[in-house]
């Protein structure tokens, strides 16, 4: 008797819950801001298709192809994505013009994944004044995680500082008595990194015994390496862009110096850095990654990467699958689609930001297993996990756990 009563109550409770849930969604008003309708969602984007950074244009093309795939599969909650991507030639004034064109003339719902630190800095104030989401910007600068001052701007990839924190953690654990020499590029990228490294070392910042900076205009950085070696350091942190990273690896081998060598993720490309520097010179170098490498055969049977390769074949056949930019664009576009799916029928700009800030353990196909996207109202840094890797033979071997740089860890 008692159990029957219990069952009845349970059934009733379930019915109420189900009713509440269904009626809730049935009665929910469809809410739209400029750029979204019953049939369409307009997304803007700014990429350097021309100019000095035009190699990154592949990211925009991959994203366009990905949205084409989503549309072919029926769109998001029945709405097709209209992806409008403009060229800014990596010039900040042009980026401002294009952002204004997207917001005021094309009337997009949001601007997604605009590329470059200078271009994003130039439009940040405008986007926040207009209250239009500037979502998942394609730059590693740390300043995009500032929800208090810029609640309409959010990053995507791990920031340079996050990566540097992870190296600091590794060093403090594995080589607590190490003497660190740092080579960094004298620009926003290099300085952001260096700050991250110092913050990460905290009280043990005295581990750094030598710092050298170079200008991108220098033809060779050999002198800096010689000086750093003379400091007697046994750890070398190489915060440089691909060309210089390769030079440094070569020079170190030439000098017969054998420090624990860490290169930044920016310069971890096998084709772009390691191969030109020579495999034999690169054995044992450390770095960190958050995404899978399209050129690495260990992912050939990975379900996520299989999906990615199938996508490239069907929607972007001229793409170069070993170009990291395709992996990047795919992951970013997938995150965007996820956020729009979460928005449901409430496609207001405010809700887009709210949903973008409520991603929980989301794992795009192209990220390393275990790397998950998490955001909150106070955490606007979607990817904060990386895994250390060591160069062995002709490829990177991942090792250790996924290391997280979430606040509080």
């Amino acid at each position: 008797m008692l159990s029957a009563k219990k069952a009845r109550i349970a059934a009733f409770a379930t019915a109420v819950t189900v009713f509440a849930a269904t009626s809730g969604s049935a009665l929910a008003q469809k809410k739209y801001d400029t750029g979204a309708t019953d049939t369409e969602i307009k997304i803007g984007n700014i990429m350097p298709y021309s100019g000095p950074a035009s190699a990154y244009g592949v990211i925009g093309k991959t994203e366009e192809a990905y949205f084409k795939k989503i549309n072919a599969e029926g769109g998001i909650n029945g709405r097709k994505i209209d992806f409008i991507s403009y060229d800014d030639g990596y010039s900040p004034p042009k980026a401002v013009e294009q952002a204004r064109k997207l917001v005021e003339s094309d009337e997009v719902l949001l601007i997604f994944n605009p590329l470059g630190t200078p271009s994003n800095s130039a439009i940040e104030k405008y986007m926040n004044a207009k209250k239009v989401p500037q979502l998942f910007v394609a730059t590693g600068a740390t300043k995009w995680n500032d929800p208090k001052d810029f609640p309409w701007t959010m990053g995507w990839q791990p920031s340079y500082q996050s990566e540097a924190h992870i190296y600091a953690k590794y060093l403090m654990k594995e080589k607590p008595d190490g003497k660190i020499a740092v080579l960094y590029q004298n620009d926003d990228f290099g300085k952001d990194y260096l700050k991250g490294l110092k913050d990460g070392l905290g009280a043990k910042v005295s581990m750094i015994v030598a710092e050298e900076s170079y200008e991108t205009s220098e033809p060779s950085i050999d002198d800096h390496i010689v000086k750093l070696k003379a400091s007697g350091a046994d750890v070398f942190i190489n915060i440089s862009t691909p060309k210089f990273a390769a030079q440094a690896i070569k020079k170190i081998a030439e000098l017969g110096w054998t420090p624990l060598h860490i290169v930044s993720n920016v310069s971890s490309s096998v084709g772009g850095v390691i191969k030109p520097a020579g495999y034999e010179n690169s054995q044992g170098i450390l770095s960190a990654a958050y995404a899978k490498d399209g050129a690495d055969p260990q992912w050939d049977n990975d379900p996520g990467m299989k999906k990615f390769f199938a996508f490239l074949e069907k929607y972007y056949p001229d793409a170069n699958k070993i170009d990291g930019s395709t992996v990047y664009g795919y992951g970013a576009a997938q995150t965007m689609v996820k956020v729009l799916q979460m928005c449901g029928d409430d496609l207001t700009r405010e809700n887009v930001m709210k949903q973008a800030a409520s991603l929980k353990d989301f794992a795009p196909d192209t990220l390393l297993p275990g790397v998950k996207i998490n955001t909150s109202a106070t955490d606007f840094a979607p990817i904060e996990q990386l895994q250390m890797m060591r160069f062995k033979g002709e490829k990177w071997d991942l090792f250790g756990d996924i290391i997280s740089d979430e606040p509080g860890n």
Partner: protein
Amino acid sequence: MSAVQDAVTKNPTIDVVSENALTFGVDSQDVAIGIPAIDAVPKRAMTLGYGSSLVMLALLLLVPLFVKNFIIFQLTMLLIYGLAVLALNILTGGSGQFSLGQSAFYAVGAYTSAILMEHAGVNYALTLPVAGIICFGFGFLFGQPALRLSGVYLALATFALATAMPQLLKLNFFEPWTGGVQGLVVTKPDAPFGLPMSQDMWLYYFTLVVTVAIYIFSVNLLKSRSGRAFMAIRDNEIAASAMGIDVALYKTLAFGVSAGITGVAGGLGAIAVQFVAPDSYTITLAIQLFLGMVVGGVGWLPGSIVGSAFIIFVPNIAESVSKGLSGAVFGVLLFLVIFLMPHGARQVAMICQQLVGKLRKN
């Protein structure tokens, strides 16, 4: 002017055209028929007649009232780049010196305004004359060594200046003021006296006033004694010095004036874009300005605005044709313009003038 001269001498049939074409607007009567057109070139060919000027001004005044803020912003940029092209036009069209370094002066002007506004709290309008004066000094000083160079060599020296500028702006030494690679964010001014207009519209009219003032100044400068000296140097340096013109002084002066106007344009640009960073002022900008001058017509001041429209809008058109090949499409369009109208917008103006003349006769 040699281009027009050539055209006239090579092709006697366009004699009438050039006579009409070179004297726009209401005062066409005062050119005596029969005097060779070449004589009229220097003074009048550089400007627009009163009638056409007023129509143009009315258009510039009225259009913003009917368009979206974004278009107003583009029009503001049109005026700003127009000013920069005008400055180059004075230098090249007026005094016959080449410069591929205008982006450097533009950058100095932009940074002067931005730094004064953001660090010293100076009113935006007051920063412009300062930017102009600093750039005038900078241009005048740069003009000194440049005196020893001419033609392609001068173009190369200025090219070096343009390539060096973004890196100079990144120097650690200046970082407390310039913000280094991160650049500086500039606050956009509101309309004063509680005027009921948007920031964009206010900035547009403010820019328009500055542009018109500088345009009138430039036209008068070229009509003045100094202007005639510039042109004498352009046409024949030896003859000019034989006439008693201080060639060195006027050449550096032309550099200074050009740099000063470019600096004001740079300051306005910083306020309109609300951001300055070294990457905004690369050699690409200098080449764009040079392009604008050629497309607008070398030595024809009103063409500056046409040239400016070309460098702002044609890349967008090219991009809408093909994203991957936007550079190539732009190249083709540019080639067509240069091939079909080697004298740029001035040539179009000539043809229009000819048509109007024909209609009147009928």
